[in-house]
């Protein structure tokens, strides 16, 4: 039980007055940064990096990790209240969070998200505490073929997500995948699909540009036109009693999603190339797949909020693992944390747990404390966010447009991308009119940039032989499960048709 004594020391270190203060500030700052569409943990961590010169490294990383956590909790807030996923990790949260808010149950969605995040983060931290070295080896055994197989699985869990119109769903997926290839082809080192020879496309089309365009502009415009501008969400005022009732309901109706998200999210998050976004998407897909009432998903199921939220927090904790044990960042945020550690004179890598155990365990201890702090602070602010939703729509709508544009610029730093947001927004409005499902395109632009290079790296490894996906011990089962999942709905459809014909 050596681990426990290390952990006890770590928790005690995190509970030192200066550290607990940094955690509280970090979580609150992170929460608000994460709640801004376009801004995420990466901004918070990058801005506060220099400040950490002034405190000891142990406290500094605790502070940065607290911001990271706060921002992960905050991501759900923008998804629920504004309907814009503020970060790619919170895409799946909009699927059910937004409908709940429109039904006047924003507080239920937010409470569910907070609790699920807490459980996810805590479960992941426990895994982290117990199995860190083992999991690091697992991460290393995932090469390009395994990551590609995993991406295939992520797509497979989403087969059922599209609308009823199959050609339009396929169009949407391919559209997202093609947009993801715009810019630069790393494998051949050549510019690719620089549309209309506009230099701005060299940087590619980011997820955030499409997501803000589709959800921030397109969806808003659609809502305004459909409701003739007279939309009123009747989100009741928050009371302590209401909060307690919501908590009870969140636990009752969201525990399944939370459980799936916590476990699945962590294992996917640990893999450096994958990270929190595929983790949260897969958890949503799996939760829907095994649910007894899958039809509830997409129209306001608390499980549908809980699964991705539990997963993205769990995965963010998981992403710290390859950073600390291997020195490999799993996300832009962990990349900057890694830079911070180098600045403080630490060498992340296999030796860190041995050479700097006080630092490592202080950080792990702070995960536990940060989770508790994030939950409490988040719950305390929920009434404020619900109050925002009580604003007349004619005030809320322009605010959402403004936040979309300024947040989009903050994320992309280029006017070219702002114009793209507007174009995607107007395009999404008309696509929505004709029942093109848009969520598949948004998912595709997230997964595409991981799927394509890993596919090509794998085929380079095997000299062009696709059997590589079926012969490697880890890749093979994942690929086969993915293919079965993709084919399953097609079989079902065929059988139903035959029955119809015979009947």
């Amino acid at each position, binding site marked *: 039980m050596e681990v426990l004594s290390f952990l006890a020391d770590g928790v005690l270190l995190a509970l030192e007055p200066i550290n607990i203060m940094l955690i509280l500030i970090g979580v609150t700052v992170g929460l608000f*940064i994460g709640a801004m569409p376009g801004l995420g943990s990466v*901004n918070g961590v990058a*801005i506060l990096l220099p400040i950490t010169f002034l405190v000891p490294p142990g406290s500094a990383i605790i502070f940065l990790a607290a911001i990271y956590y706060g921002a992960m909790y905050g991501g759900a807030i923008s998804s629920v209240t504004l309907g814009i996923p503020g970060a790619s990790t919170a895409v799946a949260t909009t699927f059910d969070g937004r409908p709940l808010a429109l039904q006047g149950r924003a507080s239920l969605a937010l409470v569910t998200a907070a609790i699920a995040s807490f459980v996810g983060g805590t479960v992941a931290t426990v895994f982290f505490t117990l199995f860190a070295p083992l999991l690091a080896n697992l991460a290393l055994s995932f090469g390009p073929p395994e990551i590609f197989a995993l991406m295939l699985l992520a797509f497979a869990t989403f087969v059922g997500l599209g609308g009823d*119109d*199959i*050609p*339009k769903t*396929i*169009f949407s997926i*391919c*559209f997202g*995948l*093609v947009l993801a*290839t715009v810019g630069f*082809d790393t*494998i*051949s080192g*050549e510019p*690719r*699909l620089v*549309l209309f020879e506009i230099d701005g496309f060299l940087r590619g089309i980011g997820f955030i540009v499409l997501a803000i365009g589709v959800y921030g*502009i397109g969806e808003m*415009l659609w809502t*305004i*036109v459909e409701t*003739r*501008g007279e939309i009123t969400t009747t989100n009741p005022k928050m009371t302590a009693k209401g909060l307690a009732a919501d908590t009870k309901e969140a636990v009752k109706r969201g525990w399944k999603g939370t459980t799936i998200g916590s476990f699945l999210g962590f294992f996917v998050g640990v893999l450096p190339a994958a990270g929190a976004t595929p983790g949260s998407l897969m958890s949503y897909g799996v939760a829907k797949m095994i649910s007894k009432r899958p039809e509830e998903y997409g129209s306001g199921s608390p499980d549908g909020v809980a699964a991705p939220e539990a997963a993205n927090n769990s995965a963010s904790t998981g992403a710290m693992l390859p950073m600390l044990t291997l020195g490999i960042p799993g996300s832009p945020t962990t990349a900057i944390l890694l830079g911070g550690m180098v600045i403080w004179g630490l060498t992340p890598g296999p030796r860190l747990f041995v050479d700097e155990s006080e630092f490592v365990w202080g950080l792990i201890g702070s995960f536990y404390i940060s989770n508790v702090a994030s939950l409490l602070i988040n719950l305390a602010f929920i009434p404020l966010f619900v109050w925002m939703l009580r604003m*007349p729509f*004619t*005030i809320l*709508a*322009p605010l959402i*447009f*403004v936040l979309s*544009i*300024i947040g989009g*610029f*903050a994320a992309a*730093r280029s*006017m070219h991308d*702002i*114009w793209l947001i*507007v174009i995607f*927004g*107007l395009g999404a*409005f*008309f*696509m929505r*009119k*004709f*029942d093109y499902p848009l969520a598949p395109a948004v998912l595709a632009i997230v997964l595409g940039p991981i799927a*394509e290079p890993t*596919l*090509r790296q*794998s*085929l*380079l490894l*095997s*000299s*062009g032989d696709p059997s590589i996906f079926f012969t490697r011990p880890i890749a093979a089962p994942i690929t086969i499960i993915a293919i079965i999942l993709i084919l399953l709905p097609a079989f079902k459809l065929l059988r139903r048709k035959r029955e119809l014909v015979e009947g």
Partner: protein
Amino acid sequence: MRQGEISLAGLFALFSLYLMWKASELPIGYIRGTGPGGGFWPFWLSFVMLLSCGAIAWNWWRGKSPASTSREPLLDAFGWRTVILVGGGVVAFVALINVISMYGAIAIFLAYYLRFLGRHSWWLTLAIAILLPIGLFFFFEAAMLISMPQGMPFTQPFFDVMYDIIY
């Protein structure tokens, strides 16, 4: 609606063709020994997009999708007006950013939307249109260290004063 659906599918088909043409600047084939070339993935996916457009058109011809049998217009007069006033407002907002800076454009857009579309009082309109950009300025420039576009040179003195305040 019926006309709209096929027009949109046609537009997307053209766009798919353009993407296929553009993707073929890089090798689109399966290169022996090294796997797919740089254009393979976008080319064939654009090709699938083209096929889907064909399927959408086929469904439209058979009257399988709700829009293809709908006799309603795409948008009624109110709908078109809203799209033009709101969507146009956003386009104008973005166009103004390069002229009067991000914050100036936000102020104008908010004033336009709140007063002319929302029909709120001048008092509320001005309060929000002036205070929000200032708040955002402090949040982005001072706290988050993100410089927003500053428009044409004539806005510069104003920014210089603001920077003197925050740094």
